[in-house]
């Protein structure tokens, strides 16, 4: 027992000799400042906290980090309220229409959270039009989506409705900017 006491006494004195009191305070300060800043980052956690308690949260938790970054996956972060076929699986990308189709000039907007940079982005969900359904990579996600009476937040209507060729082919999600809190 005495030998253990001696060992701790030796190591403490040794640490005190190698470390200034100011450097310890500085390190502690850095940790405390970081902890204080974290809640100020622009993240809306309210919906996620609710979702986490339920099936949607569990499903999201299962989605691997890879699929959240994969534009061919329905779990891709930008697709949080997309409903249709992913243009990235139809010859386009997450923000470009496939060859020979036309983008819808009218659309609806949503906000999706990018876990990679912890920012919320405003995205525009456009449909690509003029050919029949792509039929590939169907994806139906509805975070903050609203029924048809709030049309600017609705993904049920055919947004190709005003195109010269109004047939629906696939859907994209285009970043419009960072959502300001």
């Amino acid at each position, binding site marked *: 027992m005495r030998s253990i006491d001696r060992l701790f006494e030796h190591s403490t004195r040794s640490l005190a000799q190698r470390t200034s009191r100011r450097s310890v305070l500085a390190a502690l300060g850095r940790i405390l400042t970081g902890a204080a800043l974290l809640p100020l980052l622009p993240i809306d956690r309210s919906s996620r906290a609710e*979702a986490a308690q339920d099936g*949607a949260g569990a499903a999201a938790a299962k989605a691997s980090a890879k699929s959240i970054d994969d534009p061919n996956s329905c779990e891709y972060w930008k697709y949080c309220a997309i409903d249709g076929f992913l243009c990235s699986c139809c010859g386009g990308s997450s923000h470009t229409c496939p060859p020979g189709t036309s983008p819808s000039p009218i659309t609806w907007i949503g906000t999706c959270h990018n876990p990679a940079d912890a920012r919320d982005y405003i995205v525009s969900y456009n449909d690509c039009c003029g050919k029949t*359904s792509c039929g590939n990579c169907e994806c139906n996600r509805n*975070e*903050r989506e609203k*029924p048809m009476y*709030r*049309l600017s937040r609705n993904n049920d209507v055919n947004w190709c409705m005003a195109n010269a060729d109004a047939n629906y082919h696939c859907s994209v999600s285009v970043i419009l900017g960072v959502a300001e809190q």
Partner: protein
Amino acid sequence: MRTATFNAALLCLFGWTQLFAAPPLPTEHLTVESLGPSNPHWIYAVDEAFYNETDARVNLFDGDSYRRLGQIDAGFNPGVNLSPDGKTTVIGTTYFSRGGHGTRTDVVEFTDNATLALTGEIVLPSKRANTLLTYFNLAYSADSHFLYVSYVTPASSFGVLDPAKKAVLGEVDTAGCVLVIPSGPNRVSSLCESGRLLTVTLDADGHEASRAMSEPFFDADVDPVFVQGVPIRNGYAFLSFLGEVHELDFSGPAPVIRAPWSIVSAAEKGHWRPGGQTVAAVHRGLGRLYVPMHRGGEGSHKSGGTQIWVFDMKTHQRMARWPLALGKLSPVIAIQVSQDDAPIVFAATDKSDVAVFDALTGQLKHVEKQLGQTTWFFLNP
């Protein structure tokens, strides 16, 4: 052993002799099948055909014999309804002149339900709302004198048609409110973002005579209602995302909004939710409400039910929970109940299998595999 072999050979010979002696099959004449008299267990199952969306169709299915009886073509992203007497299926749809592309023609097509033959059409302005299937994409007035069609361009309005003369009578602006909820001989209500109901009354020519706004009955930010209202006695019920039931009585000159009631307990609220493409069905005679329910959070309002909950609409008490996993069914996204005294429930899964239940006991009677591609809506008289 030798006797047995002999007997077998004799039997074989006898069989062959019989075969050669049998008269030939009669000649056949190609005709068209008749439907025969309808029964309350027939269901019009609307297949949106989402994977090749220009090819939607309505499958007429018999819930007793489990046979497909016929098909009605439904074009692109259709709205579908039945006439009040059940004798006509009316489909609002869109065709492109070259199949998947080309000039757009919006049209309402009428089908005689006794023969499944087309009987006429009305060409519309190219404004028909292309949206999910509800009772309110197009709908008849109670006396069948008018037919209303929801328009979204995205400005919202509705068309008034004369189904007898096959003519467009006019168009009424709805100031951002959507869909056509019919009541009486000449009233049309629409759902508004403010949570109110706009009701337009028409004159004898189908033009607007007056309009009125209700008080708000839901908050689109806090707890939106699904637009897929369900017919109840004297009106429609609208369920909210969180499970409130808003019953609207349209029997008077102005809609009466009854006090809402909940299908979830305080502990279940926000955790168990209705959802899917068709979110509920009501047996109007028995006053029973059938709702596919799932566990889910915000954004899960289109998820199918893992259970069907049954409620008494008078007492608001839950009568049963039917777990669908027992029948190895995937989540249910559309539901309907027949309106007779021995009712059956039709429930379409997210794989377009259609389960048939005894509506009184919950007993699973049959699963029709793949009744269509994306069956999202059922209609019955």
